[in-house]
């Protein structure tokens, strides 16, 4: 049994990685991509949808290559095929969309349970176990009381507080790392305005020459 301290830290790390660094939607997308590659009924549908889409595109290209004026019969047949394939594609895509929404909902729930749920379980189970003891007299009574919230013995650090501390430190560290990378590259590395140049120069203090007058 690994120490509870470590387990809580790892969970906090996981939470942060999944929800902030990767993002819930991306996780769902990845899982969906894996899911439709498995031998499930949905994988069949997905393949069919893709097939219809490709077929429609192929027919459209072919249709463009045939002159409607000179070869109407052939053109019209292609068009019928194209319309049919397109209709099938749209239908399949729509039905897949609903399955996918369901999948996303379930996956989000599972993810939530896997992280926040485990977190909650641990907090409940180890609620009255002291993580470690504070040296006596370091902090005043009321601070001790807060640190031992909700159920740990007075003078110790409770699992909840430890979790919060881990989360905060991880968030701050990750923020610091990302900020450092951003500054180093001189452009935004994530978010909506990705790739934009930073308005701020990298930190470099210009040398102040002794002769120059200070402007007031």
């Amino acid at each position, binding site marked *: 049994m690994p120490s509870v301290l470590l387990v809580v830290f790892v969970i906090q790390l996981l939470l942060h990685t999944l929800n902030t660094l990767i993002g819930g939607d991306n996780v769902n997308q990845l899982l969906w991509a894996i899911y439709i590659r498995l031998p499930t009924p949905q994988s069949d549908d997905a393949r069919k949808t893709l097939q219809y889409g490709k077929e429609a595109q192929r027919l459209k290209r072919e249709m463009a290559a045939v002159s*409607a004026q000179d070869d*109407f*019969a052939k053109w*019209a047949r292609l068009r*019928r095929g194209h319309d049919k394939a397109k209709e099938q594609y749209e239908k399949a895509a729509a039905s897949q969309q609903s399955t996918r929404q369901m999948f996303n909902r379930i996956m989000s729930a599972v993810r939530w349970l896997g992280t926040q749920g485990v977190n909650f379980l641990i907090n409940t189970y180890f609620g009255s176990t002291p993580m470690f003891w504070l040296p006596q007299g370091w902090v005043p009574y009321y601070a001790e009381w807060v640190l031992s919230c909700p159920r740990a013995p007075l003078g110790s650090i409770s699992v909840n507080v430890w979790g919060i501390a881990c989360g905060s430190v991880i968030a701050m560290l990750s923020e610091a790392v990302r900020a450092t990378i951003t500054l180093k590259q001189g452009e935004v590395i994530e978010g909506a305005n990705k790739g934009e140049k930073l308005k701020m120069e990298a930190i470099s203090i210009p040398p102040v020459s002794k002769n120059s007058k200070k402007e007031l």
Partner: protein
Amino acid sequence: MADEHEMPPSLKPVLDQKSLKWIFVGGKGGVGKTTTSCSLAVQMAKVRKSVLLISTDPAHNLSDAFGMKFGKDARPVTGVPGLSAMEIDPNGSISELISAGGDDAQQAMQGLGGVGNMFQDMAFSIPGVDEAMSFAEVLKQVKGMEYEVIIFDTAPTGHTLRFLQFPTVLEKGLEKLSQLSQQFGGMIGNLVNARGGLPNGQSFDDVLKKMEDLRDTIGEVNKQFKNADLTTFVPVLIPEFLSLYETERMIQELGSYEIDTHAMVVNQLLFPKKDNPCEQCNSRRKMQKKYLEQIDDLYGEDFNVVKMPLLVDEVRGVESISKFSEMLVTPYEAPQ
């Protein structure tokens, strides 16, 4: 070219299909819908007891084609026993409907003042509803009349297809209207009563009920239209690209409405003699031939493709139409 699978190039199968009750004739403007529908009606009148020809094209040509005046009521065509014709305006107004055909409809609306206009606006806000209404009215009338076959000379392509969509549109619209009347019925009722009530002792409920009756009528008629034994659509086209294109589109669309098409009329074919010096005719013939081949290729298996020649004079008058109509049944033999 005479493939065994190909259907005979005449409208005889349509004439012989005794179960047919509704025949639509449609196509792009200027391809000869009216001439074709008149001819078909004349031929139909020979094999059936009573035939009614209805023009729903706002630009009424029936009177022109037969050389006699037709109106809103069915009138027999002189010289063709068993055939009657009528011209209806699909853009009739809703006020006619409210007064149930009475002439004081306009007056009634004026008497209502603002409320009447509001109601009119509300009803008109449903797209295509006025056309649907008047069509439904006509269909109701027609249903009452005992005609064996009813042939529609329809307005150019778009309108026809819109009309066939009406039951769905109308259903949605009426739903909204009755919802509105439930929500605001009291308010409207108060306003109307303050002005002395609707003329002829009608109420909005009555009007709504009338509309719902119409919806039922249209729904029922639509069911018949979707029955291939009862209804068929005869596209008329000329062997030119745009006409052919529109026809293909129309046939596909009709398919999606589950309306049967199995006969088409290719009109205005040129048959210049072999040693004809007319360059224009010959090159045009060449173009027509190209499209005719395409038509045979594309539709030959599933359609009776009737080929009609372009005559030297206009097809007008009963006699001329009768002569022209013969060619719908016995294929035209081009002079060599």
